[in-house]
């Protein structure tokens, strides 16, 4: 196999910015379709030998994530609230900064969105003070691409396990992962309450699949890259397959700082800073930005010019707006016997009985519920301190319940609110001299009401399962997000959306965006499956446009 290498002056067909969940899919699909592709990644290319079970590094020192020491951010809980600058530890908008992007460190929860996620505005009606809207596409259009994710990326699960699941054209390629004690207990409690728990679809191999081994059950999924390569990150799936075409060059340590446009308003390529801090320009016929819901809008805003004074592709003014995090709650439960939840994958059983919004609840929102480990020791111990005694012998007694504890998590909706946003900080710069992200975020009151609702369902399930002790995690306005959604929303109307239904920006014919930023609504958490289905679909359309000379 000869790896593609392109000169900067060689005009490639596509420059793809961001090598994560969407960028990896985009690169493979376009390269397989015969196009020349450069895949840019600001972070390094790491391999299994460099992946550590190191909580301090991964969760407190930004070991593989965007590090505030070089990529600081500022955060406000509202436009008139004080600004807090992150310079050490971890950033408010958190993502893995490496080849594979956040697909390298995600938990791998891969449920599909359901029909209602795409047309809920029509069903529920307007919600004042929000930009709540239907998507321009429907579940049925995305279904073949969800199936593609199942089979090409690799998802374990059980088709038909939930009587209300959305239609699927094919079963899962792998059986579900072995159930954990938390899954058994969720099932026990939920069934007693007449609910419908089912095996969690996970982007983790339950058996060897497409040249990668089955899961080693080490327990370090959430926030960690998988040294077994059993987690179906694009780092191990799409990206090597893109390279195998001989047409895709992966360029790590290459930080794209600007998309250049010419006098006729077309993108001509990208300016990037390489690993030697040299500023370079890659010529490209078209640009696809898959840099995530924080970095994609930032790059557009940084690419402002005389022709595009408010930022590239921002004639609507909504670039960066409608940021959504999802809201996760936790109910902690202690049982009589050992669960040892630190072993194996996060989640083995979920339920979708509370997925739809119900006006009788008095607020908009719905969610999925799962049983999980909660985090590994250090983060677990810090969370325990939020739920009860936080020091002294009572705290120590709580710590000693670790192996008998589990979490029932609720994953809920976030409403799109225009003031929740990614913008450029006017003063703060990163280590390359580029304007830092300023995040502004305050949960909508309905998001918090829904969170409390889901948490109470968790309490009922834990009690029905026979928990000897149940505790509620705090529910407060969030200042930290790792689902980065909605900031370059899709829509038919160029006046209030950034991209059309094919992910082409309304303003620039040869500029496409595809990642969490494309979302119109938040779903109920677990966005990566949908990000990748969108990427497979977008790549199909973009390839078709390119073949027809419509780019």
């Amino acid at each position, binding site marked *: 196999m000869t790896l593609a290498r392109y000169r900067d002056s060689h005009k490639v067909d596509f420059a793809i910015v961001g090598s994560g969940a969407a960028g990896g899919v985009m690169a493979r699909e376009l390269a397989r379709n015969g196009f020349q592709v450069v895949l840019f990644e600001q972070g390094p290319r790491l391999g299994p030998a460099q992946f550590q079970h190191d909580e301090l590094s991964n969760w407190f020192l930004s070991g593989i994530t965007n590090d505030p020491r070089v990529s600081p951010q500022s955060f406000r809980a509202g436009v008139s609230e004080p600004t807090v*600058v992150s*310079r*050490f530890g971890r950033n408010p908008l958190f993502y893995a900064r490496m080849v594979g992007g956040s697909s390298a460190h995600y938990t791998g929860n891969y449920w599909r969105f359901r029909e209602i996620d795409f047309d809920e505005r029509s069903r529920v009606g307007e919600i004042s003070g929000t930009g709540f809207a239907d998507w321009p596409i429907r579940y049925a259009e995305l279904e073949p691409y969800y199936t593609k994710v199942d089979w090409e990326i690799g998802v374990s699960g059980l088709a038909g396990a939930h009587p209300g699941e959305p239609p699927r054209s094919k079963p899962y390629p792998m059986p579900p992962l072995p159930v954990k004690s938390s899954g058994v207990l969720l099932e026990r409690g939920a069934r007693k309450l007449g609910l419908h728990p089912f095996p969690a679809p996970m982007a983790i191999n339950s058996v060897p699949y497409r040249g990668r081994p089955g899961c080693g059950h080490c327990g370090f999924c959430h926030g960690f890259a998988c040294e077994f390569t059993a987690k179906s990150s694009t780092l191990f799936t799409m990206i090597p397959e893109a390279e195998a075409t001989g047409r895709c060059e992966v360029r790590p340590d290459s930080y794209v700082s600007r998309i250049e446009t010419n006098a006729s308003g077309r993108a001509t390529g990208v300016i990037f800073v390489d690993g030697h801090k040299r500023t370079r320009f890659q010529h490209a016929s078209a640009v696809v930005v898959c840099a995530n819901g924080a970095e994609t809008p930032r790059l557009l805003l940084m690419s402002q010019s005389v022709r595009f004074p408010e930022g590239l592709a921002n004639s609507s003014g909504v670039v960066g707006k409608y940021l959504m995090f999802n809201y996760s709650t936790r109910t902690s439960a202690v049982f009589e016997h050992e669960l040892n939840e*630190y072993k194996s994958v996060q989640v083995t059983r979920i339920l979708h*009985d509370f997925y739809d919004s119900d006006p009788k609840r008095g607020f908009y929102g719905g969610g999925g519920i799962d049983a999980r480990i909660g985090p590994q020791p250090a983060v677990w111990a810090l969370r325990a301190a939020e739920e009860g005694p936080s020091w*002294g012998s009572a705290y120590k007694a709580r710590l*000693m319940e*670790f192996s008998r504890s589990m979490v029932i998590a609720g994953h809920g909706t976030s409403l799109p609110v225009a003031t929740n946003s990614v913008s450029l900080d006017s003063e703060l710069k990163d280590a390359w001299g580029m304007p830092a992200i300023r995040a502004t975020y305050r949960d909508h009151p309905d998001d918090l009401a829904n969170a409390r609702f889901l948490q109470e369902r968790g309490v009922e399930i834990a009690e029905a399962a026979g928990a000897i002790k149940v505790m509620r995690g705090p529910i407060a306005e969030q200042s930290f997000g790792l689902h980065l959604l909605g900031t370059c929303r899709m829509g038919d109307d160029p006046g209030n959306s950034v991209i059309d239904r094919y992910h082409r920006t309304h303003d620039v014919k040869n500029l496409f965006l595809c990642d969490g930023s494309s979302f119109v609504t938040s779903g109920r958490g677990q966005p990566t499956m949908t990000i990748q289905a969108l990427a497979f679909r977008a790549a199909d359309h973009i390839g078709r446009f390119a073949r027809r000379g419509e780019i």
Partner: protein
Amino acid sequence: MDKPTATRRSLLQLAGWLGVSLAVSDWEVLAAALQHESGSTSEVGLSLLESGELADLEALTAQIIPTDATPGAREAGVAHFIDRALASFMAPLATQFVAGLRGLRSEVRGRYPEAGSFINLSSSQQIEYLASIEHSAFFASLRLLTVLGMFSNPSYGGNHDEVGWRLLGFQNDHAYSPPFGHYDREYPGFHVSDGAVP
């Protein structure tokens, strides 16, 4: 609202990092101490604290995760971990933390002149004093660093001999096989639930 002062800004940063919110009174506790601090903690090494400070720090961590029938923060070497962390991989937190520790020590001297230092207080006095500051920013960072020193990889200088992990029952093997716990041992297998779905 007013432009945050440097002190207040740095406290807000620390609070942001810790993921805690600060009440006005919390950062007033530390403000005086921070004004005092002259930034003498910038050099990087393996140790930052003087022996008296280290002794008090060890006593403080031992009240957060006490030693009883099982080991606590003392046996895990948490104070050593914190000292080393502030001198190296967590150096950006050092100025604030050391200022907080010095502020605490001077407050203890004022409140308990006969004992003179935290380590010389009786255990019940130590608990009484900590209860009075448990909502402060300094206490939040003390607890955070204590937990990290107790449960992080031993290579960072704490969790000595994996006592923290053993306290929890965390095995630290690299791979496991099912069954993982008591309840999945005799799982009958999955069946689809009956009944209507909402």
